[in-house]
């Protein structure tokens, strides 16, 4: 009987925890602690622990699909490759190339080459392409800080970073938390600075008054809204004024890698409506309204459903590769089981598509791609502790496109009397990462759809009970959600997680805004 452990990196957030995949008779059957992880020492949050459940999910794509009439039908690889030919007629601003920032460096490096050399476009973006690049210090080192400014709900966005904040607090550090509600992170604070939704930057400046100490760290959990770079700029300014280390934690597992791979076109670009064609690897942008779209994914996402050609990709447990965590550590993702026949790693699919379009970006192995990107390293060299890339100065670029510019404070009105605030939920990620968590049954058992947190007084006034479903609406649209009634959120404020799960999605409400005016009413049963 074959039984083995294969250590690998978690596919969810940018912390870069590791766990062992448990392999029995060639198949992933569980996870077990990898105590040798320099990042998480064997610990993981619930997403990491249950990540194995997505690997052999019955929802996995196993065959390419081509659009026929209104729907997608299964096709052979040859047919699917033939069907991508039309993509070659788009280039420059007409095409948008989007990858998940949870994809491996090997995938991202290949996609970048594909964008540059085959599609000849600069439009390559990921959800990590927020203009923020800041990764001072190490995650473990946070435990030694004597003062930490935590911006956002890091307990839920990056739980194993929050652990280090808890360690620092246990060691006597001052913990200043800036958040829009009494989140689990705010509850760890020695000083809590409550931000009005949409005016996080002002609250960050206010938090500066509490900063004291010799080893100060400012930690920001990057979300996926158009306000991220503005908040990060305020965080960076605070860090600089206090001579503090500044670390902005990418939302997805390989956010740092995505930036290093050259995905620097702002993510809002994907929603600008300018591109006529899309090439998407592992990300869920919602339904596309494009002339032509090619999607590579492991699951039939809402984006994939609207594509012209879909290719089935291997998941993290089926590929060799690397990802770079929030502290710039390149770590090894190890192949633990063979993908089903006809399911291939992303970089290999990209190379096959490139060949069809007259390009040549073929590699013999994942490590060959890695060595092309990082010639001085090898998989062997990073097998134990990974490789910590050198620190560089923090940089934040604020996007001034129309979409990003208008994001600000929620202007409530009689029609939309609530200020909606959004950030991470611990149970699900955003976009392509929510696709992963939505296929883990243990995570879905806890949170299987969109939810809204609201103040108990507000709930009473609106006659909303904990078992009710509500309709949350903004000027953009509405979703149906379950309710969590709490005292942790102020009256007049509601929280909806930055995710898309069970058919609903934050984007329907916010269109990328971090705060927006909303209304809430009991949904008809």
């Amino acid at each position, binding site marked *: 009987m074959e039984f083995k452990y294969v250590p690998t990196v978690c596919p969810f957030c940018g912390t870069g925890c590791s766990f062992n995949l448990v392999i029995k008779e060639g198949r992933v059957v569980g996870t077990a602690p990898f*105590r040798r992880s320099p990042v998480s020492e064997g610990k993981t949050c619930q997403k990491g622990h249950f990540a194995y459940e997505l690997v052999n999910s019955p929802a996995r794509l196993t065959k390419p699909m081509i659009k026929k009439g209104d729907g997608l039908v299964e096709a052979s690889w040859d047919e699917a490759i033939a069907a991508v030919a039309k993509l070659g007629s788009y280039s420059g601003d007409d095409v948008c190339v989007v990858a998940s920032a949870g994809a491996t460096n090997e995938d991202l490096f290949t996609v970048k080459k594909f964008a540059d050399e085959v599609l000849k476009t600069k439009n390559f973006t990921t959800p990590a392409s927020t203009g923020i690049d800041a990764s001072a210090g190490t995650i473990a080192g946070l435990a030694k800080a004597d003062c930490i400014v935590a911006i956002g709900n890091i307990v839920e966005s990056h739980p194993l970073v929050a652990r280090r904040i808890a360690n620092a607090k246990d060691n006597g550090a001052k913990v200043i938390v800036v958040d829009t509600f009494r989140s689990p992170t705010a509850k760890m604070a020695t000083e809590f600075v409550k931000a009005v939704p949409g005016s996080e930057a002002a609250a960050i400046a206010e938090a500066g008054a509490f900063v004291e100490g010799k080893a100060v760290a400012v930690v920001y959990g990057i979300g996926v809204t158009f306000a991220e770079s503005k908040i990060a700029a305020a965080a960076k300014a605070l860090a600089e004024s206090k001579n503090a280390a500044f670390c902005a934690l990418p939302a997805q597992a390989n956010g740092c890698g995505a930036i290093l791979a050259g995905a620097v076109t702002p993510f809002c670009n994907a929603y600008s409506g300018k591109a006529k064609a899309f090439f998407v690897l592992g990300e869920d942008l919602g339904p596309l309204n494009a002339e032509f779209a090619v999607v590579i994914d492991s699951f039939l996402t809402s984006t994939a459903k609207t594509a012209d050609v879909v290719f089935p990709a291997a998941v993290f447990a089926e590929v060799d590769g690397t990802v770079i965590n929030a502290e710039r550590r390149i770590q090894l993702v190890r192949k633990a089981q063979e993908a089903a026949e006809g399911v291939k790693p992303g970089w290999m699919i990209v190379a096959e598509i490139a060949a069809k379009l007259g390009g040549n970006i073929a590699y013999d192995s994942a490590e060959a791609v890695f060595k092309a990107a990082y010639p001085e390293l090898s998989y062997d060299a990073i097998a134990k502790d990974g490789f910590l890339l050198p620190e560089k100065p923090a940089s934040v670029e604020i996007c001034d496109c129309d979409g990003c510019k208008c994001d600000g404070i929620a202007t409530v009105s009689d029609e939309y009397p609530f200020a909606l605030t959004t950030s991470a*939920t611990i149970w699900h990620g955003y976009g392509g990462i929510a696709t992963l968590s939505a296929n883990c049954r243990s995570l879905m058992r806890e949170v299987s759809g969109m939810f809204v947190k609201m103040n108990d007084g507000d709930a009473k006034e609106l006659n909303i009970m904990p078992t009710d479903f509500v309709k949350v609406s903004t000027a953009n649209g509405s979703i149906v959600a379950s309710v969590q009634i709490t005292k942790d959120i102020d009256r007049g404020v509601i929280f909806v997680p930055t995710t898309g799960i069970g058919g609903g999605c934050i984007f329907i409400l916010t269109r990328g805004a971090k705060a927006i005016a909303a209304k809430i009413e009991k949904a008809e049963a």
Partner: protein
Amino acid sequence: MAAKGDMLWAWAKDGNMLDNGECGGAVTALLKFALESGAVDAVLAVKKGVDLYDAQPVLITKPEDIAQCAGSLHCGTLLIPKIIKKYFDGANRMKIAVTMKGCDAKALYELAKRNQVNLDNLITIGLNCGGSVSPIEARIMIQEKFGLNPDDIVKEEIDKGQFIVITKSGEHKGIKIDELEEEGYGRRLNCQRCKTKIPRQCDLACGNWGVIGDKAGKATFVEVCSDKGADLVTKATGKAIETEVPSPAALSIRGKVEGAMLKLGDKCRNAQFEKLGDGKKRLDYIMEQTSRCIKCYQCIENCPICYCVECSTKKPHLVDSGAVNPPFMFHLIRYSHVADSCVNCGQCQELCAMDIPNALFMHALQMEMQEMFGHEPGVNMELPVLAYVEESAERKRLSDTGSDQIFNIFSEGA
């Protein structure tokens, strides 16, 4: 003919194992013999993973593969019994010889009581354990306290109260465990509290304590703890291992080492439990520490007592689904379901995403229950006190009397 209760020195007959195994390779030889002789279908032991600090479980079915599990790893803080339950059907369909430290042995008994593993199909080789060090903690300690590069270490051991490392250039360096632990380095906190140093629950209890004279380092001290263990030793003697009867001085030294370790365990317990305070103060402290829980479920997933498919913490009427931080009820459920049987394996603390001292709390509760009810978990097949509750009769009594005490611990002769 070996018999239950025998004490002996043993070493591998095979020259290779004699040199490469720990203390004369007796354990390696016994495991290989069990496999070769058909006594078991597989051996479940621990091998080196990515390096010396990474202990991985390994299932061996071919005798020639046995060498990979030779040698000891003090950073092996993993717990084997739940692996047997989760991935080997509780040893119900295959016979397995397995190596165990004290907490493994205790955890195995608790799972066996709950019908989650089949002891009949297991041969358990106990390994004396003075405690283990978490891998990353060990690396930090070697760097900061020993002034050595952790990647240069080729061997580590705990001997005569010292944590000793040997570098690839042959340098030995040892520092007293007392000294290390006073500064917050060293063994896991649960190991410091542990008093199962020689796992006599196993079929054989093996170690290097009490091996003296010219056999020091070249033989393993084996205490035969069951008929099954005696049978394995009897059959293996002359074929896989050689044995010798230890001198009375050796027995005395072994007893002294164990006695000293137990004394240290008591000292650590007192110190750690004292910090928890009593009564309301303790409750406040537990509530404060557990309030940062993120519901990662690692405590439940890795606990050798937790085996319920329908876990109460997942019932929405008891604990809100998806709520983070979860209510204190989440922890109360664990305390009420686990505390009577906690074996202090430390997994719930070592793997807690938020570093909540879960094992300390549970072990402290368990000790109090042991005092009240006299039940010591993990030492034999005796059922925990709540197992004797006949549910419908108890429900009727509670309803009739209006009592909320499942056991009226305050009445005489209850």
